[in-house]
């Protein structure tokens, strides 16, 4: 996996482990939300506000500081086919979203304190005792995953259960998932498995089945947590072509430096010009 090899030097290779990740196969999701609860229980995530959102069966709303797994429910009316009386056209898609643990993780790139780091498992984790709450990571994330907690000002997100991984255990969400919709394992294996699975589904007539963020050549270098979707990412509220928001930074810095230099030069020029009077 070339994307993986690209960032191997991003973390200390002393405790090198195979890169671990999630393959969330939404074609197996039954929307039970066990992942949401198992995550909150294990990670001691504070309770969220009780809000009746009425977004189908979703009252969680979105990933955030206090929601590290989020099951989306999409009621979708399919185009009526010939010979179909319209009754069979309703589809109810369910999908458990999570931090993508990007290969090129912008949140980590912009973090000034080193609180966000890449673990020996290739996952991206916030260290709560280092985070100073600057919030740079929040707009950097192309998925809107990482978020500051109102109560303490620090940034929080899925750790891929770093503590459990260190004990050779499966992350809580994958452990709780009754239908193997959330699969945990070595990323390389998961990608192979997913390729086969999506092929099978398309063959069975799931024309919209597609992998999302499984490609190391995409805008984030592929994700450590990728998905099999039954329709386009937009349908699930996911960005169709996410980009590492820091990818353009060198160029931006170059331009900024140039502009700053020009500005400095002109200020200095003005100063000297003034003095010369």
């Amino acid at each position, binding site marked *: 996996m070339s994307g993986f090899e690209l960032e191997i030097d991003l973390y200390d290779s002393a405790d090198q482990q195979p890169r671990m990740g999630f393959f969330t196969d939404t074609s197996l999701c039954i929307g*039970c939300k066990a992942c949401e609860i198992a995550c909150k229980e294990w990670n001691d995530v504070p309770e969220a506000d009780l*809000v009746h959102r009425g977004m189908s069966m979703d009252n*969680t709303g979105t990933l955030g500081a206090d929601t590290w797994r989020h099951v989306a429910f999409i009621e979708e009316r399919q185009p009526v086919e010939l010979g179909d009386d319209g009754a069979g056209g309703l589809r109810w898609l369910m999908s458990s979203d999570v931090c993508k643990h990007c290969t090129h993780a912008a949140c980590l790139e912009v973090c000034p304190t080193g609180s966000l780091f890449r673990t020996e498992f290739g996952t991206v984790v916030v260290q709560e005792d280092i985070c100073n709450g600057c919030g740079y990571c929040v707009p950097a994330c192309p998925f809107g995953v990482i978020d500051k907690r109102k109560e303490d000002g620090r940034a929080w997100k899925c750790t891929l259960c770093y503590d459990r991984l260190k004990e050779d255990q499966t992350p809580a969400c994958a452990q709780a998932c009754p239908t193997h919709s959330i699969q945990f394992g070595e990323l390389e294996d998961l990608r192979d498995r997913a390729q086969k699975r999506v092929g099978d589904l398309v063959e069975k007539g799931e024309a919209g089945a597609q992998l999302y963020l499984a490609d190391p050549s995409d805008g984030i270098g592929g994700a450590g947590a990728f998905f099999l979707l039954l329709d386009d990412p937009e349908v699930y509220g996911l960005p169709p072509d996410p980009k590492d928001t820091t990818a353009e930074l060198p160029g931006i810095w170059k331009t900024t430096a140039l502009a700053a230099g020009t500005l400095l030069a002109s200020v200095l020029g003005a100063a000297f010009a003034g003095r010369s009077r």
Partner: protein
Amino acid sequence: MAECHPVGFQWVMEARERGAKIIHVDPRFTRTSAVAGLHVPLRTGTDIVWLGALINYVLEGGHDFREYVVRYTNAATILSDDWVDADDLDGVFSGFDATDRSYDQSSWRYAGMEPPPAAGEPISAEQSHGAHGADLESGEPPVTDETLEDPRCIFQVLKRHFTRYTPELVQEVCGIPPDVFREVAETLVANSGAERTTAFVYSVGWTHHTTGAQYIRAASILQLLLGNIGRPGGGILALRGHASIQGSTDIPTLYNILPGYLPMPSASPDLTLDSHLEKITPPAGFWGHSREYMVSLLKAWWGDAATKSNDFCFNHLPRITGDHSIYPTIMDMRDGKVEGFFVMGENPAVGSGNSKLHRLAMAELKWLVIRDFQMIESATFWKDGPEVDTGELDPREIDTEIFFLPAAAHTEKDGSFTNTHRLLQWHRKAIEPPDDCRSELWFMFHLGRRIREKLVDSIEARDQAILQLTWDYDVHGPTADPDAEQVLREISGFGWPDGEAVSGYTKLKGDGSTACGCWIYSGVYADEVNQADRRKPGQEQDQVAAEWGWAWPANRRILYNRASADPAGRPWSERKAYVWWDAGEEKWTGHDVPDFVADKSPDYTPPDGAKAEKALRGDEPFVMQPDGKGWLFAPTGLTDGPLPTHYEPKESPVVNAVHPAHRSSPTMEEFHRDDNLYNPAGDEPGSEVYPYVLSTYRIAEHHTAGAMSRTLPHLAGLAPELFVEVSPELADERELEHNGWATIVTERTAIEARVMVTERVTPLNVAGRQLHQVGLPYHWGWSGLATGDCANDLLALALDSNVHISEFKSATCDVRPGRRPRGPGVLELVESYRRRAAGDAT
């Protein structure tokens, strides 16, 4: 199933991934529908028309598994000349007594058999589901026609009975288009037979009808005709409402059966152990050993005090005088006839049908004991319930003394769960329960111990039943918790007085030399090992996984599995081989424990005078039945007819298209009282006031009446408020706004809910018009973190006459935009509806 049993649903998903086709028949479009191959939305309460049409399709098309049907079911048996179908009697079967709305079942008997003697108290229907078929005079039906051509043979009776259940009727009554019906019928037939099997899975919603028992019967008929019983991948799987509800039926919390489905004795004064056993013991099949089961139970309970000379303390057993099931008892409670009430792990103030009536009734008690994890609404209704708000209850005038006793969770106690698969799984205490929390076992044991201490000097006859109980379990730990494994061991059984564990129910004796707390569980402690505690992972075993836990009876994983082999004892197909006759070894063998006498050869014929299982032939797999056959037609045991026939729900928006003279079940139990008013229904004047069909149900986010989910922050957040699911069409018709409020009204009360407009609810075309169904989850009450009105307040109590379960799934209602009034205004609103429904325009 994905909604209420997501963990068990993993196996359905696995089956789907292996190529199984999942068909979901449900008025709701649920999480199950979302992953099923086909969702069939039918109008609630019309399942007999739906299943009846499938039966008709199988019979008319000759799609039945003929050899299985002829040899293993009672299809060939000829009925007596007295039998008349409901079609020929304007909607009721022969034997109906219109005065007391009940059946004399004697005309349903097989030809050539005498009707049962009229003397003595009859065994009630729900009791006879224990020792069913006791009325059959002998094992073998006297007259059969294996060509199935005799017009009075059950096969032909069935054919005639179901002939009117057509795809057109399904369209008209259930609202299911004929092409959908055809797709299901063809799938069922193609997936049944020697090579393939089909399973039916239902959750308790199927029983929440006034005709619920007949729904299950209809599914049984279909599955027997298709040869899908007793075979791997077949069967009818009943998913229960909570953990171990199966266990609480096996070792019952029901009033009318004893452990192991032995009938509770009735109160006739001259009843003795012998005369009771005579009534409940059929001549053939394993119920022929009722004496062994009963006497062993009495020995387990009364030990040395139970002797042959005192009928083994038979007279210590409580007797029943009528219907003492929960709902009539609640009515009695309301009427001041019940003093005390134990509520353990249940929240009737929220979850029961007509829960408002339950609250009003509990306010009439002298004392009430609540054991739960949380201070549930059933413990606090007297001070903060809706009736305090309306002024119907005044805390100052309620005399009920309430004892709240906190309960230990399953992680805080030893014990077993019995799941829907009859599988016992042991769990061990991980931590001590906090504070005053105690296990149920602790509570019952120490309550009994203290009562016995108070009675110790009593010479009253009535107290001897308590004083002579074997109540001597060891206690452990800081709370003196009784030893749960000792209880399990007693349930499993041992010799008396030697105390050696028995290996199973075939070792039980009727002479007092064995004790066994529940004969069907006998063997769970065989070899002095807690068999329910076995934990060999599935992947280390074959697919039967016989070493995970222990299934009753005798660790059999599929009941009646003799039917997985043909009459000669060979598997019907290699693909579906399960148990078979090994002619060389002269015994039954296979993947599972054979549900058959191990060395009874397929060509065994009973000698004259044979009893119990010895009176059944070697090719009769249904070993609990007195004729060894699967019953397509039930000659005895059901209170509402030997065959399923369609009646509308008690509250239905339409007339009965099958039996116009009987809109709803002629035998259902109704309670015409001011606190249980029924909406006008069918073509009754006033029915237009309640034009919509109403169903209440569960969603994945919460557990039953909410005590275990609404009180926990994370779970409460998943579904924080009560909502009513309506179609976009109904939202238009009633000007309901998504996420706004609606008020739902019945003759009982009015509640409010947030509006969920969703295409998952579809209007149905029924009886020539568009019919709207609305649905409400019933999880909410006024306490806890997630609160809301109690949806089951809307329901009236109307019971299936067989099992006394109320019709939770079918009622009618009106829906109006906006919130309900506060305070007494609710009563005024409901009263205005009642007046309109009664035709009073003022």
